[in-house]
């Protein structure tokens, strides 16, 4: 029985992916779990594994095609099996695609002598150009096909071109389409500028360096502008006594191999997960007038990768042992740095953490990772003078700051969360039982 393989969804906000390479060609044998193709998302290049064993019967889309999530990309089945070919769904040519050439040569019966070497588009009479009208705006993996004039008008009048239906050849957005969008009652197409327009113009001089941002950087920018502009953040900082945790970590690591040693952050992840169980309102997302409290506690960990950062996710963090959390984070962070994360690595976080502890940071705050309701910024554990029983003495302290969506929660709850978190961090043995 042939099985259709679809474009996987690799994150909350993933709408489409580019099929960059077929690893298995049509006719090749494939086992369940083998890598079938590589796809590129805003965040990374990831491998798609085959959910079935058999023979690759068909590639439904070509390499370089931008495919919506859940649209079919390939069929795997038994050798020789006949399959009904599904149409590629809204597959859009990637930016390298040429414009459709007119088929003038065949249709208009040109004089037999002329060995036309060139595309005769412009010179052949009565050449009807096939102008496919796409169902969706022709955005080629982020690039919207629009004439320079259409782009200028859109820019000047704040029209979101991705919402304008193009009627030009190949679905190109042309002037009249933008003008129609402007006059029609379609306020959604007219957007507020996402960045303030009043920024001073930058004059690039010879000494300056101009660097093209990566897709990842652009994705981070988009998400965080959206987060910072639409979510009312508030922040609560708490200082934790780290002496007990540092001691316990030393004891535990003494029994572990070099590759297995647990980090301060692993403890904190576990502590955060256990605390979130007591504060389900912070392990949540808001949707309109409803707060959805997640059933699982999946703590995300921001990882620095070339060109930006990614959040890898420890599933059911609250139920995992410290060593398991540690091993998973190590493995996922490694894959993230190599640009080879698995879909599962980055999907499904319910609360995020960001740790700059290794850079000797006293305190910092983080921007909420939508659609979550809160994020915890963890700074360095440092040995500082502390007052205890009227005496000044050295002690290990660490600050952490939680950023919370005020639509979901208030300062008091956040402060209580931070206090409850201390209950674990400062009594780390609780995390071992």
């Amino acid at each position, binding site marked *: 029985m042939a099985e259709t393989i679809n474009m996987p969804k690799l994150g909350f906000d993933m709408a489409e992916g580019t099929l960059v390479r077929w690893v298995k060609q049509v006719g090749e044998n494939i086992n369940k779990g083998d890598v079938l193709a590589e796809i590129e998302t805003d965040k990374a290049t990831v491998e798609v594994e085959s959910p079935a064993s058999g023979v690759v019967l068909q590639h439904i889309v070509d390499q370089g095609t931008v495919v919506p999530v859940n649209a079919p990309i390939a069929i795997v089945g038994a050798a020789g099996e006949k399959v009904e070919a599904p149409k590629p769904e809204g597959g859009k040519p990637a930016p390298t695609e040429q*414009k459709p050439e*007119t088929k003038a040569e065949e249709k208009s019966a*040109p*004089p037999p*002598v*002329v*060995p*036309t*070497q*060139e595309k*005769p*588009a*412009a*010179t*052949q*009479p*009565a*050449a009807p*150009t096939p*102008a496919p009208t796409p169902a969706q705006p022709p955005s080629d993996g982020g690039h919207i096909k629009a*004439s*320079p*004039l*259409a*782009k*200028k008008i859109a820019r000047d009048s704040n029209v979101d071109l991705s919402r304008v239906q193009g009627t*030009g*050849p190949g679905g*190109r957005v*042309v*002037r009249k389409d933008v003008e129609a969008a402007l006059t029609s009652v379609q306020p959604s197409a007219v957007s507020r500028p996402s960045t303030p327009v009043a920024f001073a113009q930058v004059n690039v001089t010879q000494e300056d360096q101009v660097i093209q941002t990566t897709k990842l950087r652009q994705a981070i920018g988009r998400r965080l502008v959206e987060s910072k502009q639409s979510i009312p953040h508030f922040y609560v900082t708490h200082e934790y006594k780290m002496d007990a945790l540092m001691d316990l970590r030393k004891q535990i690591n003494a029994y572990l191999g070099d590759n297995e040693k647990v980090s301060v952050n692993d403890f904190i992840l576990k502590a955060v997960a256990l605390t979130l169980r007591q504060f389900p309102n912070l392990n949540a997302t808001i949707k309109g007038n409803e707060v959805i409290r997640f059933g699982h506690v999946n703590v995300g960990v921001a990882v620095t990768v070339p060109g930006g950062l990614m959040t890898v996710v420890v599933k059911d963090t609250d139920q995992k042992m410290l060593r398991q959390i540690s091993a998973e984070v190590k493995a996922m962070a490694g894959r993230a740095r190599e640009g080879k994360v698995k879909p599962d690595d980055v999907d499904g976080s319910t609360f995020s953490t960001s740790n700059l502890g290794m850079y000797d940071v006293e305190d910092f705050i983080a921007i909420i990772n939508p659609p979550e309701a809160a994020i915890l910024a963890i700074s360095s554990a440092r040995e500082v003078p502390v007052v205890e029983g009227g005496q000044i003495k050295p002690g290990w302290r660490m600050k952490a700051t939680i950023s919370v969506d005020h639509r979901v929660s208030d300062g008091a709850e956040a402060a209580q969360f931070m206090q409850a978190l201390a209950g674990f961090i400062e009594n780390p043995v609780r995390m071992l039982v």
Partner: protein
Amino acid sequence: MAKITMREAISQALMEEMDRDPGVFIMGEEVGVWGGTYAVTKGFYDKYGPDRIKDTPIAENAIIGAAIGAAMVGQRPVAELMTINFAFSAMDYVVNQAPKLHYMFGGQFTVPMVIRAVGGGGRQLGATHSQTPDAVFAHFPGLKVVSPGTPEDAKGLLKSAIRSNDPILFIEHATMYQVRGDVPDGEYLIPIGKSKVQREGKDVTIITYCKGLELSMKAAEELSKEGIEAEIVDLRTLRPLDMEPVLESFKKTNRAIVVEEGWKSYGVGSEITSRIYEEAFDYVDAPILRVAQKEVPLPYNRTLEQAALPQVPDIIAAAKEVLQ
């Protein structure tokens, strides 16, 4: 206003300038006793005599070379090339000497010479005598290249060319000598290096010149029947190129085609198109298309020759394509 042929217009321009300035003289193959291959100088020999109407040997490099020398010492020669294809025999003089003498001698010499050359295909003269290599000559700074599409422009531009102190290649089309058009009464001049809107429209801009103007005007009439109003900008001069009316029109229509008789590759259309993209990018609403000759040596066979040359239906199709 009198309606006269292109031939009469050019003939009048030559005669008026010869009458006005004794330094103006004509030289070329069969221009004298025979009256010119295209009968432009018919009667001139009898009127002005052998000193001012000089029949030359069949040696184009000698014709242009001698004209350059005469021009450098103060005469105003009008050298005729029976076809522009013969300019290749005189290529060094046409593109390497005439356009550079003023510059290389630090302005001590001027070369007030006009080369009248007959260009274009469509008369079954074979591959070597039917070319439209205008873009080749327009490539060289220092050489002005003029190619009119109406009798009025031909007369006014040729008179300006003869009075100019720069070397000018004046290209006439072999199939257009019988074209009739209104020409103002009395003396008038048309400045070199000025493009002109020959037909107003709002939907699409057709940029063209010379034979392309004739074809484009016909195409525009056909398009008009379908409700498409084409604006036609006639370049008239390829160098110096006047882009202002082109850009002004394009900013209005946002869509354009360029029509030329020469080959498409590296041609006039390529130049105009690039300039529009460079200077009016934000006004581009569709790719600009070029209508031009097929990339083959022009066939002798009449049917094939016509098929290789740009025709009215090609222009109509291209205009509709950019309007999609």
